[in-house]
């Protein structure tokens, strides 16, 4: 199975090298530098990854959509796309678990974080995210906000993603249900560091995400 790993990155110069090094020579990787103001793009290029740069910052959703568009533009080159975060919280070695799930017949695989391992505030955000995603788009879903995911390209072609920022996570679940994909959740490990915590969604970003999801339901 030919895999493309999509790594959306915004101001991740301090962590992205380690993430990319772990995948060097194993999988094709494309980094989407989402208009970073630090040298994320240069670091990614120096690490040997193909790097596409957004001229302005458009958000996580936009970066993922560019990565998906790149994968689909390669025709039949790739069988599957895997996304993971550039802040080092995901373990690239676990990509093999996603490939195994795809090989077993899943069409969309979502990494499910252990909520008990999370800081309390993150537990609350993620529980709220899962409830809202299930209510708005269908469910049930226990972890809708995970950035570690895999998609069969044949299914990804049917996705119609419209959002640009954090709400993409819920929209991906909605689209997976809409296109009738076989969805599987698999456990993943998460490395919570002070850095990765500082990059996560805060309370007000969560409210903004909810508001955009409500708007999207009318669009």
């Amino acid at each position, binding site marked *: 199975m030919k895999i493309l790993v999509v790594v959306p990155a915004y101001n991740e110069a301090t962590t992205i090298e380690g993430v990319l090094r772990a995948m060097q020579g194993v999988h094709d990787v494309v980094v989407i530098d989402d208009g970073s103001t630090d040298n994320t793009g240069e670091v990614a290029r120096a690490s040997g990854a193909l790097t596409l740069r957004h001229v302005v910052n458009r958000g996580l959703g936009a970066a993922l959509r560019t990565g998906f568009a790149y994968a689909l533009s390669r025709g039949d080159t790739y069988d599957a796309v895997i996304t993971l975060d550039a802040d080092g919280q995901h373990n690239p070695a676990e990509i093999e678990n996603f490939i195994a799930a795809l090989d077993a017949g899943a069409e969309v695989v979502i990494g499910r974080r252990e909520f008990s391992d999370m800081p309390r505030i993150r537990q609350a955000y993620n529980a709220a995210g899962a409830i809202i995603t299930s209510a*708005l788009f269908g469910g049930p879903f226990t972890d809708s906000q995970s950035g570690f995911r895999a998609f069969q390209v044949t299914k990804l072609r049917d996705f119609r993603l419209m959002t640009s920022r954090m709400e993409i996570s819920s929209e991906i679940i909605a689209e997976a249900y809409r296109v009738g994909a076989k969805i599987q959740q698999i456990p993943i490990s998460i490395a919570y560091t002070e850095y990765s915590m500082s990059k996560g969604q805060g309370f007000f970003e969560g409210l903004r995400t909810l508001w955009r999801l409500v708007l999207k339901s009318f669009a």
Partner: protein
Amino acid sequence: MNTQPLVMQIILTMIAMLGLERIVSRLRARQMGLGIVGIWFFGTAIFLLFVWRPELSTRFSQMIGIGRGVDAAVYIAVAILFYAMLRMLLRLERQENLITRLVSEIALLKNDIEQKK
């Protein structure tokens, strides 16, 4: 007591029905979840109740301490303003989406050009 429906009652009911038709079509197209559809149906039911039984609006307003029936024109104006604001926000979202598509296309095209060099 006059039991003939007022023209405004019929017009408001038709507007509500048009709105519900849009919501049902979005539900069928799976563009809207059941939860949101339920909220819209509930809101519309309350709206129609006040339209056809205006004395209830007076009773309700007295219950919450306003003291007099809220003028129907104010309700309509608020509803229209709310709808206009929603349309404006949706248009803004579409513009945002267009900008994202442009930024994405530029990134892909720049890569194609670099690959051909």
